[in-house]
């Protein structure tokens, strides 16, 4: 799943950097997220907990910027939320894992829905996973991908309140948030591999 998402992310690298620049950021989100996936490609681990922790560590070691800490924290939270030695997860376990990731991110940033950050995609996607728990993994991820995409779309007319883009004020309105767009791309890739 990481490999598939990595491929889709790499294909859109330029777009993510352009969105970062367009909303008033420093135009490097594409570079950051691609570096993150390159780092994650080197991770391994026999069970979910170890693998997720390894993903988090690799990513934080090699990727920099907000992306490093946000994604690193997300993966770390997921790792902490899965049981030790588990090498399979049921629908409830997956939903709990993503909930754990979201909770941990909440510790490093105060951003929530409406602040024009990746939280606009991640929050509804995590909620959708939980809501669709009874319908099995493919349906859960399809719902999450739709929710993430809708969330990312909605960031266009928002005014950035966190991250570098916030300094632009009114002028940040228009383009989607770079981090929300890449997060939606990741959930879409997850959904595709499960179908």
């Amino acid at each position, binding site marked *: 799943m990481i490999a598939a998402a990595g491929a889709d992310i790499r294909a859109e690298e*330029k777009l993510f*950097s352009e969105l970062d620049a367009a909303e008033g950021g420093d135009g490097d989100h594409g570079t950051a997220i691609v570096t993150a996936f390159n780092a994650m490609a080197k991770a391994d681990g026999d069970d979910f907990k170890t693998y997720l922790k390894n993903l988090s560590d690799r990513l934080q070691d090699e990727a920099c*910027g907000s992306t490093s*800490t946000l994604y690193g924290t997300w993966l770390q939270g997921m790792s902490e939320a899965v049981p030790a030695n588990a090498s399979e997860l049921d629908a409830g376990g997956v939903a709990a894992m993503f909930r754990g990731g979201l909770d941990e991110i909440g510790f*490093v*940033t105060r951003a929530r829905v409406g602040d024009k950050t990746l939280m606009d995609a991640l929050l509804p996607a995590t909620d959708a996973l939980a809501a669709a728990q009874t319908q099995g993994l493919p349906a859960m991820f399809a719902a999450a991908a739709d929710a993430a995409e809708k969330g990312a779309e909605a960031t266009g007319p928002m005014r950035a309140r966190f*991250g570098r883009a916030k300094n*632009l004020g009114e002028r940040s309105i228009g383009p989607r948030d770079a981090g929300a767009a890449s997060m939606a791309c990741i959930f879409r890739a997850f959904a595709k591999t499960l179908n």
Partner: protein
Amino acid sequence: MPMKKFINDPANLTTELLEGFALCYKGKVKIVSDKIVVRATPKDDGKVAIVTLGGAGHEPALSGFVGEGMLDASVVGDIFAAPGAPKLLEALRMLKREAGIVLVTLNHAGDRMSAAKALREAQKEGIRVREIVTHEDISAGVDTDPEEKRGLAGCIPLCKVIGAAAEQGQGLDDIVEIGERFNRQMATLAVAMTGCTHPQNGGPIAVLPDDEMEIGMGQHGEAGGGRSKLLTADETAARMIEPLTQATGVKAGDTAMLIINGVGATTLMEMFIVYRRAAQILAAKGVNVIPGACGEYLTVQEMAGFQMILCKLDEDHLELLKAEARTPYWTA
């Protein structure tokens, strides 16, 4: 138009630039563990250590100020990107000492998040460390919540002051007090005339129309809101020094230091001309302006523009600024 920079593979930029920096100043600094710049000869560990973190691409900042009288370590991220929390934690472990560590964090989301994560872990491990967050950019308005204000090049004189205090052997709490007082009394405002290119992806940052400039530009070319038609040097100086005076509360009889930090393509010729008018305006207000500095300290690639930094100084700051410093890019 292709990007015109003397670089090799964009993926290796930070590693290569740090290698070159360390080779060039090998008497003064060295690289440990890939992205941590430390002094060639460490400071006596009975003294408080000063550490900072930040992305590359802003050379000479921040690593150029590692050395006698200023920083003990600078933890470097990729271009314009904060280093990850694990790297910073590694540096804090390396400098762990009873006297303690001061971590200087510029207020940018990435740096703050890495610092928060690393500090939480360091404190769990019993490392004695206190953070000073700089947020002296007044472009969002003098009265803006400090949490919302960016840290710009004002961190450099701040590091000079606390670095000197640490060198004198002052205690952690005193150093933080001196630094926070300096922090509260300084303000920075940036102006840009042209954009620049991101050295990794070749994309444009902060494009400005041919006949416009922008007051309030951020450290990475993030926009600031104060667009205007091109002004003369004197007009620009006046527009910037007035809010800085207001923000710092500098008034007749006070002592202050003025620094012009070029961000890339703006010449020293221009910085001197701007310094001249700003210093004249301060002098006319009855402010005692001590010798300052014009130069490139914290840059934004080849962007044309500068940051004007005004620091209101107390007696102890004045003395600490004058104390010996022998780093690659700041000496006293």
